């Protein structure tokens, strides 16, 4: 699991970024930390036990990587290609995902709660035991995915496709739904 050390800045309860004593937001050498994080994302196959919150990532490809036990809360991801990657126990809560590609991914026990997810593609993925509660999703595609035990509770879903998905034990309670597509999916097996 990532490091649970708290930022040294007074009244800040965020976890420290990488090996720093501060979170990314309160770090004095933000550029250096970000550079270090980019190097990790680009060179390492396995990204494990990393905390890096409140940062912005744009136009990078992290295809076929393995992310595990990491925390990227409050980050912004624009035009990132995560396709064919594997995520286990990763925290992406309150993030902004814009035009990101998650096709053919295997995401388990991960948290996307409170995130804004715009024009993202999660199609043909294994999305088991994930927490998408309170998300704001626009023009997203989850088609052909297994969403077993994944919760979308209290979310706002607009123009989202769930075509041919496994929705067994998925949770759509308290969701705001507009123009959703559940064709060929077992929506009747989900909680609503």
């Amino acid at each position, binding site marked *: *699991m990532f490091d*649970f050390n708290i930022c040294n800045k007074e009244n800040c*309860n*965020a*976890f420290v970024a990488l090996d720093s004593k501060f979170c990314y937001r309160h770090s004095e050498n933000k550029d250096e930390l970000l550079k270090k994080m980019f190097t990790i994302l680009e060179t390492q196959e396995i990204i494990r036990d990393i905390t890096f919150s409140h940062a912005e990532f744009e136009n990078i490809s992290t295809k076929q990587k393995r992310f595990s*036990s990491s925390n990227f*809360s409050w980050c912004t991801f624009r035009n990132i290609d995560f396709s064919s990657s594997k995520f286990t*126990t990763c*925290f992406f*809560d309150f993030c902004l995902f814009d035009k990101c590609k998650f096709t053919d991914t295997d995401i388990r*026990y*991960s*948290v996307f*709660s*409170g995130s804004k997810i715009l024009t993202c593609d999660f199609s043909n993925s294994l999305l088991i*035991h*994930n*927490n998408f*509660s*309170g998300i704001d999703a626009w023009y997203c595609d989850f088609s052909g995915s297994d969403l077993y*035990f*994944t*919760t979308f*509770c*209290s979310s*706002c879903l*607009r123009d989202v496709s769930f075509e041919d998905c496994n929705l067994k*034990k998925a*949770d759509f*309670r*308290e969701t*705001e739904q*507009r123009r959703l597509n559940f064709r060929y999916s077992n929506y009747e097996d989900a909680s609503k």
Partner: protein
Amino acid sequence: MRIYQHFSVVGFCNTYIVGEKKGGQAILIDPGHVDNELIGIIEKNNFIISTILLTHRHEAHTGGVSTILKLYKPKIYAYTKKVYEFEVTEVADGATIICGGIPVEVIHLPGHSVDSLVYKIGHTLFTGDTLMATRIGSTPGFMERSLLIKIIKRKLLNFDDNILVFPGHGAPTKIKNERLFNSDLTEETVSPWLRNQIRLERNNRF
């Protein structure tokens, strides 16, 4: 510290293994069912199960204890003296126990069952069936449900926003997410009429 999750198709329960990176003594939380995958995680990481923590006595969370006892010699902790045929070390609310060098705080939260416990290890809470992502545990009646909601708000939602929550069923979460999006916990503070008004207003906006 490393936390490994295992999903059991028997009882649909999450089992957690907590240990150090280098292996050695480890804690097993709610062994609902033991299969090759769970043993594989334990052995691959060179763990020796020295402690079993039970969040409550329901079969889905205790079914694998007998198998673990055949393989390891763990000390079992729970709220009651005996869980089925197993001898258990009783723990009370507010106690801190040291399991293989790892301090574990015990929080008693009755509601789902009388013996429901939550274990706090570092910045993580293992909540069993008391608090799950966007849900609270089932209760035998409305009285118990009301009690459970009150006690979760008093004892768990006061924790820091970034505390991680690993429930007995379903996806992990954080305290902040539950405070904002758990409809079971927010329904008491917002009246059904107001909820409906908010929904109508949001729908009109789009």
